[in-house]
């Protein structure tokens, strides 16, 4: 004999507990907050059991901030990345927003992958060195164009480990941030970043240069 669904088993509890409305019960808040019930134009209250759609809260219009170019940029920063699956690429992508925030006063240009590949194809000496952060010193470019010193490249494709890439990026960020009013940028790049000269050799010996960078 087949068992009836509501057979001899333990009686199922009703889902609706005392004071808790069931699924199909009218939503009390819908009734309370409906415009009519709040004393709107209509005097008739909606019949019980009718769910009234509340008007959606008007969303605040998303403020579109207009881009204001920096008033007195010292550098033009280009990011060239053809898309090698390298640790540096990942490090750069993870920290790009921070770099942007730290250097809001500079002009930043981000080359798309396609443009980067085209650019590197035109300048083949750069193959394998990207991601490249090219920093052009606008003051130097104004003075004597690109024929003499006019900036530097950070070749992020050279570091092999994420730590090395991150340290290189941090060194770059600190240098650009602290030398934007420099009178002799070339000399400062050579002494502070590249550790040229006898003093640089001593600093390398004394581990003033992060070991991860020099390795």
């Amino acid at each position, binding site marked *: 004999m087949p068992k009836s669904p509501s057979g001899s088993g333990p009686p199922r509890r009703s889902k609706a507990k005392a004071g808790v409305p069931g699924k199909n019960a009218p939503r009390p808040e819908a009734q309370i907050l409906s415009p009519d019930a709040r004393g709107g134009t209509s005097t008739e209250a909606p019949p019980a059991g009718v769910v009234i759609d509340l008007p959606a809260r008007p969303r605040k219009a998303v403020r579109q901030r207009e881009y204001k170019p920096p008033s007195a940029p010292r550098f033009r920063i280009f990011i060239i990345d053809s898309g090698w699956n390298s640790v540096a690429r990942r490090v750069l992508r993870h920290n790009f927003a921070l770099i942007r925030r730290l250097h809001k006063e500079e002009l930043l240009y981000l080359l798309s992958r396609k443009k980067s590949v085209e650019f590197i194809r035109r300048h083949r000496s750069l193959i394998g060195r990207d991601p490249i952060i090219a920093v052009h010193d606008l003051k130097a*470019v104004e003075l004597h*164009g690109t024929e003499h010193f006019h900036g530097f490249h950070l070749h992020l494709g050279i570091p092999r480990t994420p730590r090395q890439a991150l340290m290189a990026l941090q060194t770059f960020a600190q240098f650009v941030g602290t030398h934007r009013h420099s009178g002799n940028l070339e000399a400062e790049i050579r002494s502070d970043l*590249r550790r040229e000269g006898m003093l640089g050799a001593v600093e390398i010996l004394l581990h003033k240069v992060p070991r991860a960078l020099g390795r």
Partner: protein
Amino acid sequence: MLDRFGEAVSVVLGALALAYLVYEIDRRKRKLRDLFHVLDGEEADISADLLSMVESGELQPYSREVRA
């Protein structure tokens, strides 16, 4: 005889240590030079290419606001 031999060994070892030091410093400097490459006349064409991309309007400054 042993004294002279010992002296010679220490001189050679000292020279080797010094050579290693010079080599290591040079290697690290070269690495730094590669990493932070100074732009001058040799890279004029690379920089001029980037500048021409900016001047032609092909490249626009990155303008997306970063949320505070």
